[in-house]
């Protein structure tokens, strides 16, 4: 009985491991929110396997765009527009990863413009002091 239980446990433990090794998977945290539209995607797959990375604006991948094909295990993506973006991986044997969801939530435009205004005023004041000082020093 004990032997049978041990064998079952071994089988249970080994089966998912084998299947995980052959299926590509993201190392990047799922459902993370980014505020500047860029991030580095990382994944793992069988050694030497060719990977296709697809992006979509819809969770059902009705409009997939291939953004990478090759043996690399990371890609930097940037310039993402506001909203949710979905990524998935596929190897040459058509093993597909779980879908990775990235929430793009850009910083507040109002706050950005306000900070720009403050920065602009500080810079203009600095330029004014230098130019006026240089003129007076002549």
């Amino acid at each position, binding site marked *: 009985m004990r032997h049978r239980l041990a064998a079952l446990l071994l089988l249970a433990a080994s089966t998912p491991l084998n299947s995980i090794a052959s299926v590509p998977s993201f190392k990047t945290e799922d459902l993370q929110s980014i*505020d*500047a*539209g*860029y991030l*580095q995607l990382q994944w793992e797959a069988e050694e030497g396997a060719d990977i296709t990375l697809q992006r979509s604006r819809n969770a059902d991948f009705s409009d997939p*765009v291939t*953004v*990478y094909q*090759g043996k*690399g*295990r*990371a*890609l*930097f*993506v*940037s*310039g*993402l*527009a506001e909203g949710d973006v979905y990524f998935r991986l596929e190897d040459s044997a058509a093993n597909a990863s779980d879908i990775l969801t990235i929430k793009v939530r*850009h*910083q*507040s*435009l109002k*706050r*950005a*413009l306000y*900070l*720009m205004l*403050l*920065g*602009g005023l*500080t*810079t203009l*004041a*600095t*330029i004014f*002091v*230098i*130019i*006026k*000082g*240089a003129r*007076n*020093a002549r």
Partner: protein
Amino acid sequence: MPDEQAVLNPTTGWILLAIFSVLWIGLGVYWGRKNKSFEDHALAGRNVGLALASATAAATWITSNTTMLAPQFALQLGIWGMLAYSTASFGLFLFAPIAKRIRKLMPNGYTSGDFMRLRYGRVAWGIFLVFTLFYSLTWLVSMAMAGGIVLNALAGIPYVYGMSVILAVCVLYTMRGGLYAVIGTDFIQSVIIIVGIVIAGFAVLSKVSMAEIHTNLTANSPALLDVLFPAALIAIFNNLLFGLGEVFHNNVWWSRAFAFREGVGQRAFIIAGLVWFPIPIAAGFVALASGALGVAVPSADMVGPLVIANVLGSVGAIAIFIVVFCSLASSIDSLLAATSDLITEDIYRRIARPTAKPAELKNAAQMITLALGIGAWAVCLPRIGTLASVLFFAGPLVASMIWPIVTGLYWKRASRLGAISAMVLGSGIGLWSYFSIGWYVASLIAAMVSMVCVLLFAAFKPEEFQWQELQEGDQ
């Protein structure tokens, strides 16, 4: 980036490293023959002409950040990011009249520390020394570390070897040749960097049209073209004020203002600004073309080398290796020279050995350069990745010094209390905002708080400073 993704084979990398190491050290020894005193060593005899002056100002500002981080900025923040990085040239433009003023007020001055001590007294000087040494040493460490990482990424040269070689080469020629060697090598390095980046820009344009780049960005990275991209808008003035703070306070730039021949400084810094301004734009453009060229970029900091190697092949890989090595060397040598001069003049001469003779000071400066190199090497050795990010803490520190320095040079009524409160409150509140809001506001808030402190004290508790006091310590 692992070795197997290097764009150049290690043997070629080592050969290039050996050729340029021998060249820089040979030139350092050759130019060092002119140095007889501390003044020769630290300030190149105060007789640097316009061509060399312009080249050294531009080359010093072209760091490995310009060639590596400017493309990264463009890839992350798009058109605005590219322009935000190029606003660092304002530091050079605005330092032009300041350099003229410095030369007029302190014809025999040595360091920016001299100015702070004579203008605002010992307390402000002490705060200034802590801030500027923190900034200079973290910049030095981050450059040396970047050297090791970049040489490893480009040619698979092990990090420790690459970092050690680049530091050792810069220490040797700076020790031997002083500012003569730094300025001379800067001239050659700036020509190499500019030619390299122009060739890279044209090579990219020959492979892909503007229309293709635009179409690709619109489809895949629309925010990079967005005029109202919030993160990029915030970065513009924060970056600009960080740059102003870096240039206005640091002895790297003050030593050049003292070293340039009379009447040269203003024109040299304007020319340097004009030369520098398009470089981040060209480097950033290379990054924006990566999508249209089909170059997959695994990490943002490698976009420049990857695109150039893709477009120009092995020739491009060699070119980018040389450009990056030159940009690293041109900044590390300037930092070593200016920081060792600051420590020699402000600490060794003013505190430890006030009666030291010129030859003794020159020897002290050489030993301090060596000690800085060994210290930087020891800190870089463990390759603590987060260490380079310490440089970003320096943003509020340097930005808080903009107003004390500018008004200290032009306003008699700028006061000691104003300068001290500006540096302490500006940097303190700036650092607080760094941690509580984000890096993108730290320099901006530090500069604003500092400005308010200086203005309040100048209005309600003004001083009547006598400009001739700045010449008192020159004797």
